[in-house]
């Protein structure tokens, strides 16, 4: 029998797992073959070395480490039981990827602070703050010419404003503008609290006025006296159609400049005031030399600049009146004198 055949069974021979006949064959060959005996000795030495390999003891804190492992494992198992996405490892990975993507998007979003600030505060700007912004924009812009619209783009023009306001007034009770209109004006809530001293400014507005049916030219003493009487007594005014005195009264013609009646000018001022939350405290006939009306207007101090802008659409006035640039007071009283330009 060849050595290769015998050596193939030496492993089983060492383990005593050969059949009796095969075992006899192997033993017979080994008795005559030194090479196969050498092979058997090497294999026996190997198994002996392996058999006597010492056992390695577990670390002393093995039980405690196992407790930590069991706590982690049971926690994850409970999580997978409670939350459906965690029941499978693939879904767990998907959820993790989704959370990571969300975090990345959040970080990118937070890196745009200006955009985030605008989005956070865009719907919280108070109307007065918007007016402040308009005032800032106007301060940066070059000064406008008199008669030119100083309103920023997007705001309605004077004609559109007048149309809207007249439509709104038609819904209310229409009242005639007379020489003394204080008792016809709507009574607004008092804006001046007790103990507060309002700031009073006097402003002269030169409007391109024309005489109307209830405005009497100053060149007609009798009519002027009658108007004065009515102002003091409150009697019903008489109407005078004196359109022919137009040029005589103001020395100008309609062809030179579009003119409005003093009633319309007063209405504009009143509408502007009420739109800003203010009120017209009184309307009186101005002195005989002024040929106009004096209106006492109470408006919030923060809206003075806006009020002046609106007023510039009606006529011309001197903006350099002392104190007009200061609008930090809560309430401002303006004595507005409407005169013909």
């Amino acid at each position, binding site marked *: 029998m060849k050595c290769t055949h015998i050596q193939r069974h030496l*492993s089983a021979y060492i*383990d005593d797992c050969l059949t009796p006949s095969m075992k006899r064959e192997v033993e017979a060959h080994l008795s005559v073959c030194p090479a196969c005996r050498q092979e058997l000795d090497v294999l026996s030495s190997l198994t002996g070395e392996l058999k006597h390999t010492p056992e*390695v003891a577990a670390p002393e804190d093995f039980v405690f480490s196992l407790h930590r492992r069991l706590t982690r494992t049971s926690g994850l198992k409970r999580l997978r039981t409670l939350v459906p996405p965690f029941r499978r490892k693939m879904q767990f990975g998907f959820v993790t990827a989704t959370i990571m993507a969300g975090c990345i998007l959040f970080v990118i979003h937070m890196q745009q602070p200006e955009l985030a600030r605008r989005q956070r505060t865009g719907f919280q700007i108070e109307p007065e703050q918007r007016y402040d912004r308009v005032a800032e924009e106007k301060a940066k812009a070059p000064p406008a010419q008199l008669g030119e619209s100083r309103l920023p783009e997007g705001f309605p023009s004077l004609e559109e404003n007048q149309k809207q306001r007249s439509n709104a007034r038609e819904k209310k009770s229409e009242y005639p503008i007379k020489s003394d209109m204080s008792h016809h004006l709507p009574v607004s809530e008092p804006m001046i609290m007790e103990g507060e001293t309002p700031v009073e400014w006097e402003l002269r507005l030169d409007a391109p006025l024309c005489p109307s049916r209830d405005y009497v030219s100053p060149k007609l003493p009798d009519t002027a006296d009658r108007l004065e009487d009515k102002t003091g007594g409150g009697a019903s005014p008489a109407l005078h159609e004196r359109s022919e005195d137009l040029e005589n009264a103001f020395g100008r013609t309609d062809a030179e400049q579009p003119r409005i009646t003093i009633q319309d000018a007063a209405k504009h001022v009143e509408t502007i005031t009420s739109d800003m939350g203010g009120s017209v405290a009184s309307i009186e006939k101005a002195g005989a030399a002024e040929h106009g009306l004096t209106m006492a207007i109470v408006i919030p101090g923060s809206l003075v600049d806006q009020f002046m802008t609106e007023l510039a659409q009606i006529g011309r006035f001197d903006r350099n009146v002392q104190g007009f640039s200061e609008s930090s007071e809560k309430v401002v009283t303006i004595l507005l004198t409407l005169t013909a330009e």
Partner: protein
Amino acid sequence: MGEYTNKETGGSAAEDATLIRQFVAGDLQAFDRLVIRHQDRVFSLCHRFTGDYQEAEDLAQTIFVKAFQSIHHFRFESAFSTWLYRIAVNTCRNRIKSWEFRFRQKVEAFHSQKGAFTVVPTDEASSPHRQLEAKERRRMIQQAVNELQGDKKAVLILRDMEGLSYDDISSLTGLKIGTVKSRIARARQILKKRLTGILL
């Protein structure tokens, strides 16, 4: 397969069964006592399969966690030690077949290649030198065993290190007895070639 008995603690199947019943009834400390009785045997098996202390600890913990999770299904048809040993062998076989473990083995083999098979001179007969020589021999044998692949490694460990019979190995691994024999013979031949000059 015969009952595996813990040598250090002298535990028996009856004591294990009692502890299992106590644990199932709610006594968590009974499982700790079971772990203490069998931890060294399981850890040693894991160390033989992996050849690394940390890896063996992680593997042993995994085995006991599996036992903890499935001990409620233990039906007392065999000894707890046999049941646990079966879990341990299957877990170790799966671990050494995993790509992570094989990758680590290759990396470690690469780093320890230099001087791995250096034969220590034996002409000096001093006791410390012999101890060092024996330690070096064990290290090289363990390294040679670690480099065996798959089931050859498993059956060699179970037969030559753990001392199991061919029948027990066949029962544990699910391999036929003829396959077990041939793989053991093949594994020994590989080791003999790798350990030439060290053996005898």
